[in-house]
């Protein structure tokens, strides 16, 4: 059985499901569970659902210590940029402790945060910082693009024995999609072909998957068949699925809401270059422009990728002469 659910609600459903399943799962963050009326608090009690002060270093560090000693904390961070206040804990503590201990401890921790809030939040609350984290061995990075993935990947993140940064796109919060009822787990590290196609591969992340699917629909009307691949997990990255698609279509457009040189697209381009060389003719990256995110709407729209830019990029790679054998 499945039902239609909003992306944001699907995440919450996964958290509730996992907390029912495993008493070691706890959930805390700023400005949550503030009154006795809070449904999570009612369900799970104030031992397991807590309100935290504005202290990201301690919130994340405490999550790490609790994870090292048997709990499975989910830390609600609200906005991914707030992690920057505590980046030592995210980058240099959580993913290192297991390795440094020679495998004796594990850190089953979920850091949940929204990202890329392009709704007039300006320079410090609208960014995509996953590139910084996807290259950190020991850390997993998850970016769901649909309601079903939002639920399944959250369940998998909570069950994973490693620190997982779970980044949900704020722009998708109210989007509806079919979500399987009950236990539903999407394995980490497995990409999903969101739309099969033959002429061109579009690899897109988070909110950009929605844009890429809209672009693919427009292109279909012009008899261009675009395959949309959603990595879903940036670390570990499912290079095989991406490379196989590129080998099949021979042309690729990488769509990423992050600025070019701090995009996941740049990393994926490197993998394609190495693993699919000789089997593709053209590659383009459609990323945010190299500016901070501006406040005013026309400025913001100009900087961030959109359907038009994706369609234009697809046409340009298709126009490029074939070089591959």
């Amino acid at each position, binding site marked *: 059985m499945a039902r239609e659910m909003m992306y944001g609600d699907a995440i919450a459903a996964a958290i509730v499901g996992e907390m029912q399943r495993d008493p070691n799962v706890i959930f805390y963050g700023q400005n949550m569970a503030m009154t006795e009326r809070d449904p999570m608090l009612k369900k799970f009690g104030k031992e397991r659902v807590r309100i935290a002060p504005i202290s990201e*270093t301690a919130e994340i560090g405490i999550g790490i210590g609790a994870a090292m000693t048997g709990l499975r904390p989910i830390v609600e961070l609200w906005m991914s940029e707030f992690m920057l206040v505590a980046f030592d804990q995210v980058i240099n503590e959580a993913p290192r402790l297991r390795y440094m201990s020679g495998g004796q401890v594990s850190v089953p921790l979920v850091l949940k945060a929204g990202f890329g809030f392009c709704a007039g939040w300006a320079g410090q609350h609208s960014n995509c910082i996953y590139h910084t984290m996807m290259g950190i061995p020991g850390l997993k990075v998850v970016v769901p693009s649909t309601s079903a993935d939002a639920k399944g990947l959250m369940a998998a993140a909570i069950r994973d024995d490693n620190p997982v940064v779970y980044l949900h796109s704020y722009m998708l919060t109210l989007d509806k999609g079919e979500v399987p009822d009950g236990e539903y787990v999407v394995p980490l590290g497995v990409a999903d072909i969101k739309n099969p196609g033959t002429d061109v591969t579009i690899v897109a992340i988070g909110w950009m998957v929605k844009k890429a699917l809209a672009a693919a629909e427009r292109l279909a009307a012009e008899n261009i068949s675009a395959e949309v691949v959603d990595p879903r997990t940036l670390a570990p990255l499912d290079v095989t699925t991406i490379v196989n698609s590129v080998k099949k279509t021979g042309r690729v457009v990488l769509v990423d809401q992050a600025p070019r040189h701090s995009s996941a697209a740049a990393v994926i381009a490197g993998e394609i270059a190495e693993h699919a060389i000789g089997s593709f003719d053209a590659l383009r990256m459609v990323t945010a422009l190299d500016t901070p995110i501006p406040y005013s709407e026309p400025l913001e729209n100009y900087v961030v990728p959109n359907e038009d830019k994706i369609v234009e990029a697809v046409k340009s790679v298709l126009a490029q002469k074939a070089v591959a054998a």
Partner: protein
Amino acid sequence: MSRKARTSNTRKAKTDSDQLRWMYTQMVRIREFEEAVKCTFIEHAGLIRGHSHLGDGAEASIVGALSTRRETDIVMPSYRCHGYPIVLGTPLGKIMAEVFGRRDGMCHGFGGSMHLADPSRYFPGTSGIIGQGIAHATGAALSAQVKRGGQIVYCFFGDGASKQGAFFESLNMAAVWKLPIVYVLENNQYQAYTHFSLEDANAVAGEPLSKKARAFSIPGATVDGTDPLAVQRVVAKAAHRARTGDGPSLIETKFYRLSAHGNVITVPPLPTQFPEHEAVAVYGNRKEFERWKAKDPVKRFRARLLKNRVLTEASAQRIDAAARAEVQDAVQFALASPLPAPEEALEYVYA
């Protein structure tokens, strides 16, 4: 006095002397271990890589605090961490082998001196970034609270760490959540190379560092960290408070680090070596160093136990000799242990 009362008093006295002997033994084992590490820099130049931080001078603080510990209580020290697993019972050979980067090290050579861990003995690990481990220890206390197993956490960190945001944020949250944790601020007087009077607001005002506790409305106390029994008394109170659900305390144990912050930072192929203490090497203040050396906690405790007849010279010598032999065996074990195979580097990245 009734016969029964006399018997139980005698038994208590025996237990007390047993514990005092245990405490002295642990202090000597730590001292001998750290001396052996230092010797390695001379006898096997280049064998110890990176940065090693010794705990000589901290023995009374470590042992006094841990003497109040119960079997399943969690211990979370800083990167200056050799002493704690010694007291917890990790075989010294495994600790030394880790410092030497060997496969039989407690972390199979993946952590080294700064990152010892022995979760089987309730020592989950350390952070090498000053102050950050305070948050991890606080998280361990959250586990203890949620699991209701009666555990408490002993969190050790230096005076330098008490200026990190992690310190302030963690103590605030521990106080808000009434977490079962004892924060032991080991004031060894030097934050790496900088004397604490140059970087601590309480010190600048001529006040003890434990005053920081007032910011969190929790008990704070400063104690002579060269006296294990004084440390024991104060920490026991804080441990009781943690155990009974009243939350955290901050104890400043004031002592003096007897070795330099760490070995000299050298660039290969120059071998690493141990410099003189900062008081001498940086500040040219040999007098200060000598004054504190005269208060050496191990020597003072030995003299005290001899005076109180808990130890005789012969029994003290037996303890000293046993510790020396144990450490020498540990060095031999570590030297004989193989280096890890290069491809082992790929293990343990993910669980």
